[in-house]
């Protein structure tokens, strides 16, 4: 038993280490081993998600429908079931038009929920919070406007067929460009830090694991 667990652990460890090495080989260049590892990752993730959906969504929903005593509830289930079945037609290009109604429902409801959430959950609270923060908030607001001004690319057409913006607008755009550069740099730094952490964690794990295996 212990040996079986050890074998399973060791084999899992080795496979994991190899896949890690395959992914890390992308440092040199794109190669088949890297692609193999990526394909395995995508495939396993998709398969696992399918299994989870079946076990934790479809089967419990089916059981709930079956065990439903209220006829009214059962009637209400007819519409979602019909829409779900029509959505399966999207798998066949010739009959894809059948699932357009289901897609319309999904997109409409999702858009409505997202819109409401964006307005009530992000815009209004953020604006309110900025209004109450004082000078720093004002500076932040100004810088936010400068960043938005950077994305305005229309202007006056000169005789030389060049687009010319007003001088003050060019300074505002330049400020927004500078702020945006710093913001993106911070995001990149955090992302880079996360990746380094993941790298160190992985190699540290394998190092410790192999050292434990070989040294006991």
């Amino acid at each position, binding site marked *: 038993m212990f040996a079986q667990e050890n074998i399973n652990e060791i084999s899992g460890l080795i496979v994991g280490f190899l896949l890690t090495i395959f992914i*890390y080989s992308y*440092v*040199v*260049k*794109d190669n088949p081993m890297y692609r193999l590892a990526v394909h395995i990752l995508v495939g396993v*993730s998709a398969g*696992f*998600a*399918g*299994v*989870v*959906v079946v076990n*934790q*969504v479809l089967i*419990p*929903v089916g059981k*709930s429908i079956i065990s439903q005593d209220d006829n009214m509830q059962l009637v209400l289930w007819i519409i*979602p079931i019909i829409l779900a079945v029509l959505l399966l037609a999207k798998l066949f290009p010739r009959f894809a038009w059948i699932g357009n109604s289901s897609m319309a429902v999904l997109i409409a*409801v*999702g858009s409505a*929920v*997202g819109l409401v*959430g*964006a307005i*009530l*959950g*992000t815009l209004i*609270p*953020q604006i*309110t*919070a900025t209004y109450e*923060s004082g000078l720093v908030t004002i500076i932040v607001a100004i810088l936010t406007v400068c960043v938005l001004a950077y994305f305005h690319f229309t202007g006056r057409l000169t005789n030389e067929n060049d687009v010319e913006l007003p001088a003050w607008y060019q300074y505002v755009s330049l400020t927004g460009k500078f702020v945006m550069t710093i*913001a993106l740099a*911070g*995001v990149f730094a*955090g*992302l*880079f*830090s*996360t990746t*380094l*952490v*993941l*790298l*160190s*964690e*992985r*190699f*540290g*794990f394998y*190092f*410790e694991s192999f050292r434990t295996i070989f040294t006991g």
Partner: protein
Amino acid sequence: MITVTCPNCRVENSALSRRCISCSSELIIDGHVRCDNCRALTPQKLEFCELCGSYLFTVDNLGDHEEDHSHQKDSPRPPLASATPSLTDSPGDDSQRRDVRDQVAKDKHESDPGQIRDASAKPEDSLVPGWLLDVDAALKTSGTADLPDDASETSVDAAGTGTGVTGAASAGATQAAQSRIPESPQSSEEGSESLEWIDALEGDLGETSAEPGEPEEGETPSDRDQLGSSGEKTKPATAPLVGLVVSETLRRTTQPLDAQGNLLGVPQQLAGTDLPSWLSDQLQHADEPRDDPTIDDIELPEPTRATILSPGEPEDEEESSPFDASVLDPSFEKWLQEFTEEPISPDWMDDDDVQIDQPSTGEVVLPGAETPEWLHDIHEEEGETAELLGITEVVEATGKLAGITGAIQIEPAIAPSVVDSPFPDYSISKEQLVKIALLEGIIHAEPVKRKRMAVEPPPSSPVLLRVLLAGALILVIILAAVIPSSTEWIDSFTSTGVSGPAQDLYDQLEDASGAPVLVAFDYTPAMAGELNPISLTLLEQLAENGSIALTVSQSAAGSEVASIVTEEVENLEWMPIGYLPGEAIGLRSLAECIAGAENCETLFGKALPPEIQENLAETAAVLILTSESDSLIDWIEQVGAPNEDAVLLAGVTQALGPVVNPYYVSDQLMGVLIGLPDLAAYEQVLLGIESDDSINISSTALVIWMTAAFLLAGLIYYAITGLRNSRSE
């Protein structure tokens, strides 16, 4: 060149001609006629040419056909070169004979338009003498006929020598000729039939042409006096009988001379004239055997190869071409010389005014003719008109029309001169310029087709550099793991203080002690390296606080991660809700459950156990563990916004630090734990735990410091090189 004098119009014709070029009368040479096809001499009696076998359309043949038509059926055409002349032979097509006969009559009419003939005239009104009609009637009844006394002086050459009496009656018709008339049964039959066609002609028969015999030397025709002083030869009035060969019977019975001894049908102008001596001699001695060599006496050469041989027959190599003069038969050559010798023309022909050119062999010489005066007058008038109009006549200098003025220039008519016109000046309009510019733009905008080549990655930094950097990173990590003391100096540069968000997180969790806490594991195993330590630490705090952890996940893999992580925490009471589909919509339904348990029997179609429903309704805080900004925002917007009392806490990766701060500032998030550095401080300061993650934190810090150094070095290097390049440009 040998020429033949037309007996009718006295025009010299080529010996190779079949008919006179002037009056179209048939030219008979010693009883022979020329074949129209091969120009060979064929006996006049024959219907087909001896050489080529072509049909000879003659009046004699027409008469024979009329006579023998009742007896002859469709007889085959005699073979070539072996034709047996026979009067009984006749071609099978009667219509051709009629056509020829009509043509002859037409020619005769045209040649002498002055003489009016009435085709419908009765025989007695025609030129046929009455004695002839009597003879005809006698022949029909008794088969014999006596010629009248008037006809005694006439002579008919009917000896069968082949020399037909061509119209002009032979003087001194003998009794022998008369006796021969009734004895010949054939002739009797012919006579009856011939008279029929004579009746049909009715006046078309007139004078017969004179025998084209050669007059004696020195003798000039008496009718020469009838010629004009200019020596012009006028066509005798006997022209109507041009080419008309009288049948043999008619020759015997016809008395071409009238009672006065004049030729019948001779115009009055010449009626009283005497016959030329040579002609009268001819008629007198018509019955006498002639010593003149005839065509029968001459051995004709063998037919030419071209006319005998049928197509496809092999030629005999021994035979030579008849056109090869070096191998001509001597007899043929001698015969031909007779025709090539200069003809002996009578004295009356030797007129200085009449110049007859002696052309070269093969050419037909037309006697010169003078333009009549009336034509000259017209021409002068045209010349005057042309002078008035300024038209200058061009005198032809070359060709057949040399010396003649006023000739129509044919070259301009058939070959008009081509005037080279220069290309017209072209101009380009504005619209065309616009179109040209558009086309040029389209052409230049077209992508250039490139050859397929192996796909290669774009040029980037050298592989060795990348490998060295990657190796350095790994080395540092291993070094930190192997030699922990190597990272101690990093600790002096790292901050050990707890950040404000982390502190707030700690406080919120402490406030939620003993209450259910909804923990959302919205990250995949890929981010487990950074979020698992955070999750474990927070769950351990919940366990220590006695809080119930309700685990939920928006990703399928997150639910499994949640089960793995919660199992590692000891003494933790947790309830799995499981996978929550629908993203924002699912969170919205979950928010309703958080608001009140009475509306949370089912969650997205899945029935919830009652204890979960109760715990959801009593949720004190929502702990969001995620690495994705969308997931965090959805939680904030869908769960936090509808429930103002809900406490949202977040444990995120360091990459979400900039995303989380605005929501923390706006109090939408009550506490945030960002990355491992915050976790390390959180554990050490707040929890007082010295976990195993410190090694990772140290190595991570070392790697981050080293990476920062590399980035800084690269920044300096490329900045310097960029400035140099910009200056050099």
